């Protein structure tokens, strides 16, 4: 735990120094979006990596956080900071509800994956057709730049916000690794029957994991709303968000503290740089992205974190 906390502190220092040192809009934007992608992957890792429950529908919680926050601000006149908290709470509740429904009936593996995907689709279609969500037109947040309204003039404010969430997610993950709940969760992941036999309640541990995971995803959704000030159902409830969350976590390394952060950041920077390089040829950047994704899986089956671990093991073995 101490080593984890020290690493997290070092991470905060790096982000702080980098943000203070540059005024380049491009760099700050890249950092902000990489942190945002990392947050999504970390959220997914809490349930998918530590709990072994693969969700294809994390957009459900993302969209819930974004829409709850937007509607609270626009229709309820709620302050943006409070609306953000409401968005997180709404996503956590939805996570609990979906988990209660699916885990109670013992859905796992690909069935759980498909049911989450179906839930996200139901919410996407509902948000497209209902009035209070603005339908297909989406919702546009009125421009009121002020820190009190969570609309920072400089990217640095947003970086502080998203870095804060990432650190909270890191702390939650670190706490989970060293807690009774985390041990129970991993026991359920590795062998549910055996875990139950020694007195672990699988339903309770999985519910805790999905609620936490949904809350963090909801925070990412509410953050997205504040940065782009516009959401529509096909973006925030669409499969793209669900895919971004799971790809970052799996490529980085499932069930590791730093893997999802690393995976999401690497993939995000890859997508960004290929888009900048080959932007005039639509499609080529994503062809490269998809190819690299397949190659990463082919040659690093345990993710980037697994690769780093075997490299450091090999290094230690050589030094004897």
């Amino acid at each position, binding site marked *: 735990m101490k080593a984890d906390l020290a690493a997290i502190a070092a991470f905060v220092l790096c982000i702080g120094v980098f943000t203070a040192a540059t005024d380049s809009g491009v760099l700050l934007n890249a950092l902000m979006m990489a942190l945002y992608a990392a947050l999504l992957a970390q959220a997914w890792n809490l349930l998918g990596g530590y709990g072994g429950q*693969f969700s294809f529908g994390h957009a459900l919680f993302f969209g819930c956080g974004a829409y709850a926050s937007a509607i609270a601000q626009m229709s309820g006149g709620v302050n943006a900071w409070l609306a953000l908290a409401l968005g997180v709470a709404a996503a956590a509740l939805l996570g609990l509800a979906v988990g209660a*429904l*699916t885990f109670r*009936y013992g*859905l796992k*593996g*690909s*069935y759980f*994956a*498909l*049911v989450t*995907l*179906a*839930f996200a*689709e*139901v919410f996407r*279609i*509902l948000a*497209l*057709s209902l009035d209070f969500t603005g339908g297909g037109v989406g919702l546009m947040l009125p421009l009121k730049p002020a820190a009190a309204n969570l609309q920072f003039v400089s990217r640095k404010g947003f970086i502080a916000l998203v870095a804060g969430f990432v650190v909270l997610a890191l702390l939650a993950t670190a706490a989970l690794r060293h807690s009774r709940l985390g041990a129970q969760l991993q026991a359920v992941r590795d062998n549910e029957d055996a875990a139950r036999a020694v007195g672990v309640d699988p339903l309770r541990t999985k519910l805790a994991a999905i609620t936490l995971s949904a809350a963090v995803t909801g925070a990412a959704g509410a953050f997205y709303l504040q940065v782009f000030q516009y959401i529509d159902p096909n973006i925030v409830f669409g*499969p793209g968000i669900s*895919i971004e969350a*799971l*790809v970052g976590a*799996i*490529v980085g390394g*499932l069930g590791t503290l730093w893997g999802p952060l690393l995976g999401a950041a690497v993939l995000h920077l890859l997508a960004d740089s290929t888009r900048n390089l080959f932007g005039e*040829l*639509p*499609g*080529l*950047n*994503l*062809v490269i*992205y*998809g*190819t690299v*994704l*397949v*190659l990463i*899986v*082919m040659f690093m*089956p345990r993710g980037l974190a697994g690769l780093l671990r075997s490299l450091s093991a090999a290094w230690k073995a050589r030094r004897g």
Partner: protein
Amino acid sequence: MGFDILFPSVLNGLTTGAVYALIALGLTLIYGVLHIINFAHGAALMVALYAVYVLKHQLGVDPYLALPLVVPAMFVFGYALQRLVINRASHGKDENILLVTLGISIVLENLALMIFKSDTRSIDTAYTLSTLQIGPAFIAVPKLVAFGGALLTSALLLWLVARTDLGRAIRAVARERQGAKLMGIDVEHVYAMSFGIAMACLGAAACFLLPAYYVNPQVGSGFVLIAFTIVVLGGMGSFAGALLGGLLVGVVESLCGLLLGESLGQIGIFVIFIAVLLFRPTGLFGARA
């Protein structure tokens, strides 16, 4: 609401459902039997649709006559894809298969985007607009042909899996992979054959689909979840179930569209899907455990 409105809606749903069933049949083999989650299923359909489009547009080959070209080509494509890419990259882990097929679908969709741009294209044939009157309903002839094609394809698959040596090998691998290997079955070959057959089904689906439909690089993605829904509804691995499940999904979508408005049409499908997964995970028609 009278018969005059409901009947055409149900009939229309049945013909749409037949197309869904065609697309889901291949997935029944690879997801229902072998439990490979193939995210590239929609993208592979898109590839087949472009193949049919190019054959018609450049060489003037009628979509139905393209069947003997597109079906074997898709089989080879599927066999190679499983053997050379998916199998090698996945290391037998489910989460890796998921990522690999996802990566493949991203590559295929964007290759199509590079080659064909994002325009939506369709083909003109003599029979594209011809209709047949059944009672108060008018049904497009290509949709009726697709309906027949779905029946034929599912019968063929059923025969293949139930009666041939390959079918026996596929069932053996699905049930007990290690045991099948010990009995001298080439497991990798069987997986690749299954994948090839599934892609061949998509080739057939594309030939039947295009005369009444269109193609663009994203066209497949809308079918992916529906295809998975049908496989689960039909009872994992049951071809007759997939056919019935497809028809049911088509009718539900059509009726929901009629009753709740066009934009909510698909919600009925996913609500049924969630309910079936929760309360009857063996599927509506999968009585045998």
